[in-house]
């Protein structure tokens, strides 16, 4: 029942493409939305730039409602919305939508966390120059926290890759699905190992890039 590698390679290659597509789009859309959400969480925190108990309270609770939902359940619960937005609840495209949404929520916490360490003095300096909150967010908060943010997104890359593994549940394919269906479910550990190796190589490359960028950005 185990297929030989000549038939598996094209499948692996296709899965690779699907994973890349899913993760890239999710990180782009969800990553950006999450950046916005995380910034919103940070700036509305008591004592911060746009401190607003009500807004912070609502955002905080909403993020906490979404994030802990087991992802497969989330995918299903979001089904009706996905159907509206994507037109189908099956396949890679249909999976990217909930993946992006969850990525956004996960990202928001990472972003928030990484902003907490910013020296309030530099924010103050920008305020003193008459910079608008929007400008401060884009030109002070983000750049000042860039090194940890880069590492944060590297972290998220792996988290999203991990989430993408269950894309197969709704026919989304990808490396995780490939490893599960052609490896795990068929007790073919070679397939599992090869797939995991591919994933690990991607991750090493991304992490290497992340480390490099972070170091650059630290100017140390």
């Amino acid at each position, binding site marked *: 029942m185990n297929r030989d590698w000549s038939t598996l390679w094209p499948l692996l290659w296709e899965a690779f493409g699907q994973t890349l597509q899913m993760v890239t789009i999710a990180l782009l859309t969800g990553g950006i939305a999450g950046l916005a959400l995380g910034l919103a969480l940070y700036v509305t925190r008591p004592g911060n730039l746009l401190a607003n108990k009500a807004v912070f309270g609502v955002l905080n609770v909403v993020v906490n409602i979404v994030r802990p939902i087991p992802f497969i359940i989330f995918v299903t619960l979001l089904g009706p919305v996905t159907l509206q937005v994507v037109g189908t609840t099956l396949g890679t495209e249909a999976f990217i939508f909930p993946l992006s949404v969850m990525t956004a929520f996960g990202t928001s916490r990472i972003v928030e966390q990484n902003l907490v360490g910013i020296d309030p003095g*530099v924010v103050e300096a920008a*305020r003193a120059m*008459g910079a608008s909150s929007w400008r401060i967010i884009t030109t002070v908060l983000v750049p000042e926290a860039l090194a940890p943010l880069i590492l944060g997104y590297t972290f998220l890359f792996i988290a999203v890759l991990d989430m993408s593994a269950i894309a197969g549940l709704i026919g989304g394919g990808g490396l995780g699905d490939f490893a599960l269906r052609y490896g795990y479910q068929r007790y073919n550990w070679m397939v599992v190992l090869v797939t995991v190796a591919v994933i690990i190589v991607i991750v090493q490359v991304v992490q290497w890039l992340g480390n490099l960028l972070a170091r650059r950005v630290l100017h140390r």
Partner: protein
Amino acid sequence: MSETVSESTAGATAGTPAIELRGVSKTFGDGDRAVRAVDDVSLTVRAGEIFGVIGYSGAGKSTLVRLVNALETVTAGSVVVEGTDLTGLPERKIRGIRARIGMIFQQFNLLNSRTVAGNVAYPLKVARWPKEERAARVAELLDFVGLADKARAYPRQLSGGQKQRVGIARALATSPTILLADEATSALDPETTRDVLALLRRVNAELGLTIVVITHEMDVVRSLCDRVAVMEHGKVVEVGDVYDVFSAPSADAAQRFVGTSMHDRPSPDALARLRERHPGRLVTVGVREGASSGTELFRLLREHEVDGSVVFGGISEVGERPFGSITVELVAPDERIAAFLAALRTRADVVDLGTAERPVDDPRSLLTEGGDR
């Protein structure tokens, strides 16, 4: 004469007030641990003047200035900047006012993610200067603060004074109408300090920039400021023209500060050493603008046939006017010295320090204890 406690906002304005503080207080924290950093301060800074703020560490100087551009909100009272009451103004409106106020921070507060040039360009970007003008302005400012070669360095690669100079350039970038300088030269060597002060004086004179200078360097106050406020425990305990405050400080803190700054009166240690070196009668003679003390000293010495020498002291300018004192050793029989001093006393402030054998302790010399070893 200097005014004590706090000047009335109504009476003090000659020009249009650039900044008016009316009964301003600022408390940090609450309950037991509340700190009243600024306590019921009323103050007017006139447009175009250079206004100094001095006081002990922790007196509330930085907090006071931070209230002016609403980086802190007042707990009580109101802050009026160029006619606009900031109290309760929405952040968006305050922004417009802040854009006209430059601020040099005590802790520099540079953007670590930007180069030196990027830091100086930042306020220009905020003010939407076109790109080319921005570059030219940045180059000009960096040139002035002597950091042209560091334009592409990042703050972490700078020395303390270099950081401070970036802060100065940044604050001046948009040619604000008000400059708040919180210890703007504290990390600078004397010569760079001199250059910065000269620049401040120039922009003040040429462009009418109103400057509020917090400093602990009395020389800065002396040579730069028109008026000065002395703070202690959150309160302004004395405000007035620099010359008045220096020549006749009334508040305790003011007296101490002026004392340490003038270097003209010997500290007790120094006095002891003077007595060792100079066995004759030591007398300190004050020099004030208008008073003829200095001028007639030599004639009187001659007339009374008193010999001697200048052994200590300093006469320099405060607000472009002469000010200081000299300590002289007088060598002559006692009665001639007595006659001489009697004559001199009608014309100047004289403090008799006695001789090594019969020392007279001058209470005012204590003030300058730390001035010299």
